[in-house]
């Protein structure tokens, strides 16, 4: 099976500032990869690019098949007057689009997804009344409904309680078991070491990419930190050259 996500010398920029430089490689079908690196290393930008939300400045990025994206928590308006069930039903968007009414089976699937993340009975609750962890569970239920072969998670366990993190991690492993391709931006290196077989260490340039044990070495992490600290001077020059 060919890789669902393939990158050839991809460079992503914010305005004139480089976010990700010269990244080549592929995320194999069915792989479970953690993307780690210092703040501002371009991790979120890379996910957004794979989801088709950020054009590549240079290089070639191909992503096949339907992709489900869990955006960073800050991107959603948690005070918006919408019920939990409606949020989960948004997962049907790729099939139902903007206009079609949902079929009973589709509403049923959304109810099942809510139950699967432990929020049975929350159907009519407005999302504004949920805790951070509960809201993240709702977004995972939406991912369940999306049922996509490729799943991108941007800091999925940030600021959620330990119990929720464990439950959601179990879902991630379930998806992995189902053969889906999963990329997750993460900060907790212990979690990455124990739960994620593959790791991409990113510091604007790729530092290391492969089996987690060979990537998360002390030498690589030091290199990543040095690169991200050294970068600010170089950024200006690179922007001018372009």
């Amino acid at each position, binding site marked *: 099976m060919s890789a669902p996500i393939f990158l050839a010398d991809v460079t992503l920029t914010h305005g004139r500032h480089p976010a990700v430089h010269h990244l080549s490689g592929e995320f194999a079908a069915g792989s479970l990869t953690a993307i780690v690196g210092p703040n501002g290393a371009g991790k979120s930008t890379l996910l*957004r690019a794979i*989801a*088709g*939300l950020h054009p590549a400045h240079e290089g070639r990025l191909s992503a096949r098949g339907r*992709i*489900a*994206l869990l*955006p*960073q928590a800050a*991107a*959603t*308006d948690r005070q*918006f*007057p*919408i*019920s939990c069930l409606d*949020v989960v039903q*948004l997962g049907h*968007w*790729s099939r139902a689009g*903007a*206009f079609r009414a949902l079929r009973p089976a589709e509403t049923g699937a959304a109810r099942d997804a809510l139950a699967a993340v432990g929020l049975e009975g929350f159907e009519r609750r*407005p999302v504004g009344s949920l805790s951070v962890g509960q809201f993240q569970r709702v977004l995972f239920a*939406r991912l369940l409904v999306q049922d996509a072969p490729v799943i991108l998670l941007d800091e999925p366990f940030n600021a959620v309680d330990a119990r929720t993190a464990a439950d959601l991690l179990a879902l991630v492993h379930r998806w992995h078991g189902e053969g889906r391709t999963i990329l997750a931006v993460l900060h907790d290196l212990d979690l990455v070491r124990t739960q994620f077989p593959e790791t991409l260490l990113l510091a604007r340039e790729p530092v290391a990419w492969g089996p987690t044990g060979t990537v998360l070495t002390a030498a690589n992490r030091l290199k990543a930190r040095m690169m991200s600290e050294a970068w600010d001077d170089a950024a200006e020059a690179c922007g001018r050259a372009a």
Partner: protein
Amino acid sequence: MRPRRLSAGVFDLLFSPFVEFGFLRRALVGCLALSLAAPPLGVFLMLRRMSLTADVLAHGILPGIAAGFLVAGLSVTAMSVGGLLAGLVVAVGAGAISRATGGREDAALAALYLVALALGVTLISTRAGSVELSHLLFGSVLGVDDPALFLMAGVASLTLVALAFAWRPLALECFDPSFAAAAGARGGAWHMVFLGLVVLNVLAAFQALGTLMAVGLMMLPAVAARHWGRSVGGMAYAAVFIALLSSVAGLLLSYHLDLPTGPAIVLVAGGLWVVSVLAGPVDGLLARLLHRPHLAG
């Protein structure tokens, strides 16, 4: 005998102005049409944190209206065409300016709206007296002639149909823009449709309410409805109801107390907003006070 006299009094107060005067009936129908279409737009503006944008658009149309007025006098068609063009320029221009100058859309909007208001008043003053100027700024029930009425009814009908189509994309775009983009919901295109509807409604409203208060029936009921509904649909229904009530009560107030129409309608809506802030079941001050001991316990 007393009940009969009472009922006659109620009739005089509430119905006879509309029975007796055709211009009041036309104003009533026009305002009711506005009340059906504008408040749901206001709800979306509020949810998108764009409450001030409507105000800016309402002032932005003034130079266009003034240009139409200079060409053809108080003609609904000329003023509407001018206003529509000016409104669309401001709607597109504000977004473009803020993108080009790096965010700060509110600053660009504030600048645009001051310039537009000053330009509009200056243009009108070159040719018109204070009567026409106050008519354009504050509206007048006498201004609701047949063409204006057709404009209001047409805009209301178009808005309701368009909103029915745009509802889901608009809601998704404000709730979760990243998801909307990833799902290919074309938020940008729907946003332009939405801004176009806002311009049309402001244009229709200025005939009765004047440019300074044209957004009164759009924003005040919407902001008040936040305290009555827990869903976008619930808020929209509440906003429409508040707007309908404000229109009828404002017109009656304006007739009986000889007040300018636009301010009277907007003041009633403002009163209902105060009531909503105090007594509304969602985040109302009273509801909060009553709930506090429960939460503490």
